[in-house]
């Protein structure tokens, strides 16, 4: 079960296999390759047309600066600008904060919940699963309005509940620190159940025999968890981690609607910033430059994450 992420594949055989049937299986090399092309072809074609072209276009645009309807070539100036722009730094810091706090928090909770839900003796499993999945299914508009109402400083549900246990009301959306807390809480609320479902799918793919064999060998619950479940779940956890990481670094929806990036840019993330630059200041070149910086960072973080999880094996 090795995953060859970036390792080059072997040299192609010069023979081409005739068809997919017939007893001459010796050409397994070439045979292994050509059907591979056909399977990936639709995705690749779509990718090239609808992704690569706009992508190259955005890369091209990042070498221009647009003001007053005129675009002028500025070379790498937009990229250099990135290093002098305090908002770029601030947005990266905010994204990093969310990455470091929210993602592990959420994946652990999701893992825990999935594990609990997977217990064979559990009743109301469908009910629990569905309820936890509900948040992921809400439309963005509704979810943000509801949270804004609930987090309102005066009379919002959150502060009313706090009041019941004697805590003073928190200025959730107007205070820099609390706004970040509120953002992390709302992202976690929204996506934990979703990740739980995916991890649960992985859990249920673990063959029962493995558990049986371990139990016969006298392994305790913790040993089973750490030596059987986690390793078996590795691909799924990896998937969950990487997608959550990318989600955190690319955070846009939640803060766009909940806080608009404020207060005082405390919840500004790179994608929200590039969106503002592109759609409110119409400097699409700079927006593209920000995007490419982000891509580079995400790529590095993802590779690091991948390598770490591989090493743990």
């Amino acid at each position: 079960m090795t995953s060859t992420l970036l390792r080059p594949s072997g040299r192609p055989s010069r023979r081409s296999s005739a068809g997919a049937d017939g007893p001459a299986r010796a050409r397994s090399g070439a045979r292994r390759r050509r059907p591979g092309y056909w399977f990936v072809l639709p995705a690749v074609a779509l990718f090239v047309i609808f992704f690569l072209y706009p992508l190259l276009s955005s890369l091209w645009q990042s070498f221009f600066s647009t003001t007053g309807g005129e675009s002028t070539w500025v070379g790498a100036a937009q990229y250099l600008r990135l290093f002098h722009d305090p908002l770029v730094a601030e947005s990266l810091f905010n994204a990093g904060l969310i990455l470091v706090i929210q993602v592990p928090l959420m994946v652990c909770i999701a893992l825990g919940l999935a594990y609990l839900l997977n217990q064979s003796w559990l009743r109301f499993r469908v009910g629990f699963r569905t309820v936890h999945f509900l948040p992921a299914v809400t439309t963005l508009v509704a979810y943000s309005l509801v949270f804004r109402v609930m987090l309102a400083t005066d009379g919002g549900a959150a502060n009313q509940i706090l009041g019941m246990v004697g805590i003073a009301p928190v200025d959730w959306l107007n205070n820099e620190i609390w706004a970040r807390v509120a953002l992390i809480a709302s992202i976690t609320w929204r996506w934990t159940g979703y990740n739980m479902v995916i991890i649960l799918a992985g859990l249920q793919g673990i063959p029962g025999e493995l558990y049986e064999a371990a139990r016969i060998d006298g392994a305790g619950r913790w040993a089973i968890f750490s030596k059987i479940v986690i390793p078996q779940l590795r691909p799924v956890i990896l998937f969950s981690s990487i997608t959550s990481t990318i989600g955190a670094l690319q955070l846009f929806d939640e803060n766009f609607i909940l806080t608009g990036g404020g207060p005082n840019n405390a919840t500004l993330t790179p994608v929200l910033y590039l969106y503002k630059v592109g759609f409110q200041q119409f400097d699409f070149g700079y927006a593209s430059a920000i995007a490419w910086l982000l891509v580079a960072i995400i790529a590095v973080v993802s590779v690091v994450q991948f390598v770490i999880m591989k090493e743990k094996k």
Partner: protein
Amino acid sequence: MPRSLKLAAPLVALALLTGCASGGVPSSTGAKLASDAAVSGQITVWSWDVAAVALKRLASTYTKEHPGTTINVVDIGYDNAYDKMSVGLQASSGLPDVITVETDHMPAYIHQFPKSFTDLTPLIGADKDKFDPSKVSASSNAQGQLLSMPWDSGTVALYVRTDYFKAAGVDPSKLATWDDLIAAGVKVKAATGHALISTDLSTGSLFQMLLQQQGQGIFTADGTINLTSDAAVKALTLIKTMNDKGLLDNVKGWDGRVTATKNGKSAVMPEAVWWIGTLTGEMPELANKFTVVPLPAFTAGGTQTSNDGGSTLAIPTQAKNPQLAGSFVKFMLANTDNQVSMMKNEGLFPSYLPALNAPLFHEPQAYFGGEKVYELFAAQTPKIPSITYTSDNAKAGDIVANAVAASVLNNQDPAAALKSAADQIATATGRKLAQ
């Protein structure tokens, strides 16, 4: 070479050859509109909220008077309307024949897409002077061409809770200056415990309103940054003073302000004429508790109004039927009867000054205990100071809002906060500070 890449290569080359450069070629300045040309065919109009309702209503009147024409009004909602329009402007396609653009968004569009809007001057000629001057200036380009037609005005006045003022023993009609209002606020707080104003500091809109009242914007007429002026410091100091005296109620967002007003958290609300719609719609139980007076002046005898909001209608140059579009826009906006009907039915306060003479504006309003509030707004509308927006208003607005919060909530000296904001805007936009 793997087959998949073999297929891809020519496609990529094709894409590069066809030029994946920035947004398509902006079209020329658009059709030359004639004032009374024959019209036919169909147009599509984008708008939101009550504006869309008004458009639909008047569109059906128009098509009855002009058989053979069809007008499709689409409500695109307000929340992301500008994203939709910006993309269409950038790509030079995808926009309808008529779009709704708020007055304060128009300068940025004019600057960024100078060739994307049709000149509307031929439609109305000298009638241009019959509109609210602050709106005409915001809708025109440097060459004096009118690139969108003013629709409704956001004339600002002060809505006062008469019961609170009565309890404090203050007469709302005697508020000549902001200092008077602050003194009144202190009394109201002592007598009723209520704050003076509920506002969302994080938007900075109160500050910009106060600044415009003094005839200034974030930028001067020649595009330099105006935040270090006396007027700016005065405006911010005013807000800070209010907060220091416990007179400010900081809420979040539109819903925050509506809730605060409904619950009577504060005694006054400086806001535009369209606030009346919210009052009558969401708070019918508060009828007869409000009066409307002009804004207190900064110095006795100074301007007592400002602007907040108000929209315009524009015809993108990519419109397929600009002639019909122009005719319809003129029908809607440069027309006394129709403007009056929009006031009556949709609560849209005309920026077409002749309309303000209609009897409707002199009628007593039941919600305000029989006061003729529209007379007040009508009298103030021609006095709204014109300001310069520039294309950097959005960027600057964010920075200014942060400075307002920093000064008011974190106790920073207003002049220092504004200077810091000015420096940030200078860095972000490359403009210079005003001397």
